[in-house]
């Protein structure tokens, strides 16, 4: 774009696995101080491109140039030496070292291989101050919240003089407040000339914080444009390869239905605390519970799933008073199905085939004297797979091989197997691509239409307003605001009510 050479330029980059081309002739350039978004559905080639630039894999064809000079990134180390730092979605750090030590990792201050805790701390402090970040330098890395860990990782990259940052979905697991902070930081870096390639699923952020968008579809770059010259709708269309369907799932006016879930005066002493939370979910209704991380919204979902037995208050499911939700089994017996937030660590057994994953929560109904009735199991799995519109090569495929969206469909399907009265969903579309997200939303709406009451606990504001029939805003452990019929325009109202951080 300007006279000087681009910070990074790639030309004709191609990568092939076996006979499958995952990346084909990708060319673009990234200027100094430019923030570029890399968009695409899962499987479009985003992570392959990131891995190529990070030196984790080598291209089959094409060139990569840094500051106008062609480089060969044969290892992550080579990439770092050329000033490229890659921040994967799951951060890689040393948990038991302090924040300061992590920042200085890889470029330890000192002479002749000697260093001192003071020197490390001083260096870390300089780096942090340079970007006006306030970090607890002496705490162990693993005691920090994710948002701060990311800041540390970014500082670490800058401390080794990286001029090009690759960020892989850094905000996927962040609350909106933390995401904003991160975007402010990337903005600051950009003004100092750092080039940033930003992989994300969140279009609102992209249009707020990026200069350029690059869209990948099936391994090809199908669009490269300054954000001013395009629109979220056009970008989605490019990602999908077809116009998106209307996203507004807000239900038409429905008569008040019989309540299937009634929580009264839910309270919890331990953090995250709950204070007098009361809510009702009617049959066929989707009630949204929106709050930033730590607000207590997650705690409500987890407690309904049987993960916290220290919540006081009354719980009525389908007219029956529950004593206490002592564990997941008790929750299920009461007719509650819980879809946890993290499908990989809490939801799925990744090595298990799809069939067994779908039937796992209802094994008891599929056995006779302890022996599995495999035909029934397959029939159930086939039915559920169709209901959630699962795309898998075969139902015998391990769940871990599926894309994030399809994994999520398996998780939701496994909970539907029990024919629950109430479905409690926590972050049902986190880290899922646009197409799958749309399908999941459509599925949830269809389930509601069939009468399943749903409590949707999400930190994704678009999802909260787009899917909920009623939206409750949680802040500091209590419901602070209720929006009767949220529309896309309710976003700022909800954000405002949920905001408020110490």
């Amino acid at each position: 774009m300007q006279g000087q050479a681009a910070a990074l330029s790639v030309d004709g980059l191609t990568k092939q696995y076996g006979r499958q081309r995952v990346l084909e002739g990708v060319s673009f350039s990234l200027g100094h101080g430019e923030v570029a978004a890399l968009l695409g559905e899962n499987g479009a080639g985003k992570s392959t491109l990131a891995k190529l630039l990070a030196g984790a894999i080598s291209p089959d064809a094409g060139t990569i140039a840094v500051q106008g000079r062609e480089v060969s990134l044969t290892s992550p180390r080579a990439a770092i030496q050329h000033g490229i730092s890659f921040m994967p979605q799951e951060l890689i750090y040393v948990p038991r070292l302090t924040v300061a030590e992590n920042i200085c990792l890889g470029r330890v201050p000192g002479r002749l291989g000697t260093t001192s805790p003071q020197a490390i701390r001083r260096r870390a402090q300089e780096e942090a101050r340079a970007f006006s970040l306030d970090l607890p330098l002496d705490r162990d890395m693993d005691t920090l919240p994710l948002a701060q860990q990311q800041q540390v990782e970014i500082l670490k990259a800058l401390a080794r003089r990286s001029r090009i940052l690759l960020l892989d979905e850094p905000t996927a697991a962040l609350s909106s407040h933390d995401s904003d902070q991160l975007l402010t930081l990337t903005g600051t870096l950009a003004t100092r000339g750092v080039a940033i390639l930003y992989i994300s699923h969140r279009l609102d952020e992209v249009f707020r914080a990026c200069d350029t968008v690059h869209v990948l579809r099936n391994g090809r770059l199908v669009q490269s444009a300054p954000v001013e010259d395009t629109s979220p709708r056009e970008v989605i269309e490019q990602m999908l390869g077809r116009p998106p369907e209307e996203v507004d799932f807000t239900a038409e006016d429905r008569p008040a239905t019989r309540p299937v879930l009634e929580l009264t005066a839910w309270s919890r002493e331990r953090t995250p605390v709950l204070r007098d939370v009361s809510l009702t979910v009617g049959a066929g209704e989707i009630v949204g519970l929106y709050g930033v991380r730590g607000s207590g919204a997650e705690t409500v979902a987890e407690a309904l799933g049987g993960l916290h037995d220290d919540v006081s208050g009354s719980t009525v499911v389908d007219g029956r008073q529950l004593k206490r939700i002592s564990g997941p089994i008790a929750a299920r017996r009461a007719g509650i199905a819980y879809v946890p937030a993290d499908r990989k660590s809490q939801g799925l057994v990744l090595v298990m085939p799809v069939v067994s994953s779908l039937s796992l929560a209802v094994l008891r109904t599929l056995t006779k004297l302890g022996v599995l009735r495999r035909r029934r199991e397959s029939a159930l799995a086939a039915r559920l797979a169709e209901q959630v519109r699962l795309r898998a090569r075969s139902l015998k495929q391990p769940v871990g091989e599926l894309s994030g969206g399809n994994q999520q469909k398996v998780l939701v399907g496994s909970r539907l197997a029990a024919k629950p009265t109430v479905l409690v969903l926590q972050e049902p579309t986190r880290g899922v691509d646009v197409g799958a997200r749309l399908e999941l939303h459509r599925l949830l709406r269809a389930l509601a239409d069939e009468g399943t009451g749903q409590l949707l606990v999400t930190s994704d504001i678009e999802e909260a307003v787009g899917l909920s029939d009623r939206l409750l805003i949680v802040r500091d452990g209590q419901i602070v605001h209720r929006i009767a019929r949220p529309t896309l325009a309710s976003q700022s109202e909800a954000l405002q009510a949920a905001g408020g951080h110490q």
Partner: protein
Amino acid sequence: MSSTTDTPAPDVSATTGTSEARRPRRLSMSDGALQTLLLFGFLVVIAAYFTSQNSNFLTTRNGLNILINVGVIGIVSLGQLLALISGGFDLSVGGIVPLGAVSFALLVNAGYSVPTALLVVVLLGAASGVVNGVLIAKARINPLIATLGTLSVTGGLALTLADGVQVPFADVSAGVLTRRSLFDINNHVWIFLGLALLMFAVLRYTSYGRQLYAVGGNKQAARLAGIRVDLVTVSVYVISGALAALAGAVLASQLLTGSGTAGTNSGLQSITAVILGGASLSGGVGGVPGTVIGVLILGALSNGMAILTVPSFYQTMATGAVLLLAVGLSQYRSARRSAS
């Protein structure tokens, strides 16, 4: 042909499903089955080598010899398999086997019938397993530490009961467990094969088996799916303990004496066999066919080397090398797969 395949596909083909549909195809065989087949090939290679060196290796007589020799460790390995699938392992079998052997001998010498003695011994093993299971599932002690502790306790108990000496059977009829019967095959070989078949069915066709794989694959997910993770974990160590004690009784019957020092290495040996058979220390995978082949590989190695009169310490080294080779190959395979 080349000209058509090189034409870029028109963009209209990009429906939502294509990204998944285009994933590379692999063999339609399941991973586990493929691994078992590879392992079997490995066994064949070993057998072929020994046969080429000494024609006595590949005879029915010698095949039975191998089975006779692996019976004890085979029974232990079936229990160990469960522990590994659940994501743990059981070192204490190295103490429970001698404990079973000594107590079986003492009970029989005290005048109890073989079935009664066997029942008591198995219950004793199961009780040790309860201790393991509770330490691991309830007290959340790492399986390494927990079973290392019970290994010492049970092993020490065996030596104490034997009073530091061997306990020879007063009546040789206690050798019945290893006597030849049906088809001229020894009873304990039948016991091993029968248990293997039973375990195969349990793992594959029961909800218990399914729950076990889920617990080993992801404890948290299993718990949220309504599985009693603690109960499953305890059961695994109970079964492992019971089978180890049974194996101890078989060993005593084979040697015609209950020894506090025989079978003390069965912990590491059984883990070797099970890992060789495709299980993983991280849990959630493994199966009976692989384990049986793993046991047979160990048996064939030591038998073949004995026939070639290779000193026994070389055998130990060879066993280690084979383990590292097999695990290294499987790591290489999975690393290559996850790279794509």
